């Protein structure tokens, strides 16, 4: 029986954790299997949950978020027969962990391009949640994409706050969006968990376009969400559960080539995406896959060529 450990944001964060849950659910629906799950509540529970599930015989144990790296490195060796899956972790050295990293900057690059093409004002916005490197990583890819389309484009980037409340403050998300609109932004990309709900809402209310994150959020405001930057955590989780105990371990980087990231196109936003847009973005996608185009990752040296934080 597989087990799934959600990060502190909780299972229904409308993005990252929820994607994992959806993947797990799809697996359960398709196979009729069942899985264990826990929504972490405190830091100390990270290790606790790992051990408890491993001891109870869960296999594989799937964890969400980079913060699990540290406890995993301590625990994994104690349970050599258990396979662990670490989403968003790529730097551990252990034989029984499947480490999955996503090239969020590449996906963000594509939606950044779309934002720049859809923007009439020449200004696009980015609203992050708590100010942490991961969110800067998103923002950095986005800015590069936008600049690639329009080197003169203005990118307004804001973080919601410095406490965990920043992930759940849609009111602040709204205000930030309004502030960005007043600075000319007419497309806003939200990478802010529950705060993003406020961003998308306000963008829809104010008649500008927004971009969702992680899951496909196009349906939240049909015709008003330009696209969503997909991070196929659901696929990763689904695959892991499907592989079960025979899971292949090692480091897996899920980029555009692996369809680990991408942009969402469905009936809700079809009318917003022109053919040229699609063509340009698909070309860039191919170039990245082919290695002709390199999107700089914020992690490379903790800075971004296209945006200052």
């Amino acid at each position: 029986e597989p087990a799934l450990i959600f990060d502190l944001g909780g299972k229904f964060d409308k993005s990252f954790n929820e994607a994992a849950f959806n993947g797990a659910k799809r697996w359960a629906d398709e196979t009729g299997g069942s899985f264990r799950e826990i929504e972490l509540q405190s830091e100390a529970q990270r290790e606790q949950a790992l051990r408890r599930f491993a001891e109870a015989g869960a296999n594989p144990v799937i964890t969400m978020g980079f913060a699990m790296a540290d406890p995993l490195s301590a625990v994994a060796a104690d349970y050599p027969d258990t396979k662990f899956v670490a989403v968003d972790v790529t730097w551990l050295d252990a034989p029984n962990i499947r480490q999955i990293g996503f090239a969020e900057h590449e996906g963000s690059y594509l939606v950044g391009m779309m934002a720049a093409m859809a923007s009439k004002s020449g200004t696009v916005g980015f609203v992050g949640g708590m100010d942490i490197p991961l969110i800067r990583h998103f923002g950095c890819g986005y800015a590069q994409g936008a600049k690639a389309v329009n080197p003169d484009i203005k990118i307004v980037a804001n973080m919601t706050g410095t406490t965990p409340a920043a992930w759940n403050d849609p009111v602040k998300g709204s205000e930030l969006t309004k502030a960005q609109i007043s600075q000319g932004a007419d497309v806003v990309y939200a990478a802010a968990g529950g705060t993003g709900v406020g961003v998308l809402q306000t963008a829809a209310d104010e008649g500008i376009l927004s971009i969702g994150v992680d899951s496909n959020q196009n349906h939240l405001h049909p015709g008003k969400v330009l696209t969503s930057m997909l991070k196929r955590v659901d696929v990763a989780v689904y695959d892991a559960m499907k592989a079960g105990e025979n899971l292949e371990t090692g480091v897996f980087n899920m980029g555009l080539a692996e369809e680990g990231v991408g942009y969402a196109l469905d009936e809700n936003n079809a009318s917003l995406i022109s053919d040229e847009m699609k063509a340009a973005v698909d070309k860039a996608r191919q170039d990245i896959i082919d290695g002709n185009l390199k999107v700089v990752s914020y992690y490379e040296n903790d800075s971004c060529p296209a945006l200052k934080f």
Partner: protein
Amino acid sequence: MDKMPQWADVVLIPLISLILAAILSALVILGIGEDPVAAVNMMVSGALGSTYGWGYTLYYATNFMFTGLAVAVAFHARLFNIGGEGQAMLGGLGVALVCLYVPWPHWSIALLAACGAAMLFGAIWAAIPAYLQARRGSHIVITTIMFNFIAAALLNYMLVNVMRPVGSMDPASARFAETVHLPTLHELLVPIGINFSKAAPANVSLLVAVLACVVVWALIWRTRLGYEIRAYGHSETGALYAGISPYKITMVAMLISGALAGLMAINNVMGEAERLVLNSTEGAGFIGIAVALMGRSHPFGVFLAAILFGFLYQGGAELALWTNIPRELIVVIQALVILFTGALDNMVRMPLEKIFLALRKGKA
């Protein structure tokens, strides 16, 4: 002359209140379609049924003892320190700096140094609100709330921009060296023949917390400073009459309070995470308020209340692990416990007093 025997006051009333809280919690569990008996079983066996459970219960309790004592000491001087959260964050910063940048030969020396740093940083964070209260009359409740937010921003800055190892995604400091690893209860108890769970994070900080309870008790009830703190807390004009400086007491009480809150960091930062992460305090500063109020600001009461909340935390974690009950249920149970044992305790006390009075009259 008291209206009730002391044992009724100290044991019976909290017990009945707890039972009431439990009954209401059971109703809530029923309301969301789960089985309360199974849930309680799982909580009790999960939190108290094994050394593993105890290890977690005591780990959380250690945090709450520190923050509860912090709030309690300030309360004795009639100061409402809501800033335990921020002070504990700063304490964590102090511990991290000490553990990261000094090569300690042995954990015991490192612990001493970390205690010092945690207390110093926590005290500094309490000192500014204390000074503003004592000298400028700025209300300590506002300033400590503000300082919580400021501490969060400061910590975020330190972790994201300064202390994070280059290239790491995690807004956290590097891991502390092996030498500053604090012995867990497992490592402490196995040599004397008790097979305590290896997994649980409870560590030697627990002993420091218990020691802190004793020290605070002695401080408040046995020393001259404690005498002055209590006198000032009861009556400011009285303090003036007795030559007790309000300024001094406000400062000293808040410094002690901040130091105690900061001290929590040896448990969660040094003992458990062994690195500094964002949000490592996880609201323990606020739980400390409830713990102090429930413990009637007495160190022994704080000790018991801390264990009760530790039990709720760990029991709740077990529930979350093995059932689909949302984790918020535990928050509700905590609320009910605080409500019944703290705010509604007269609901139990008033009728009981009548009963005891009638009994006494019957005898006389």
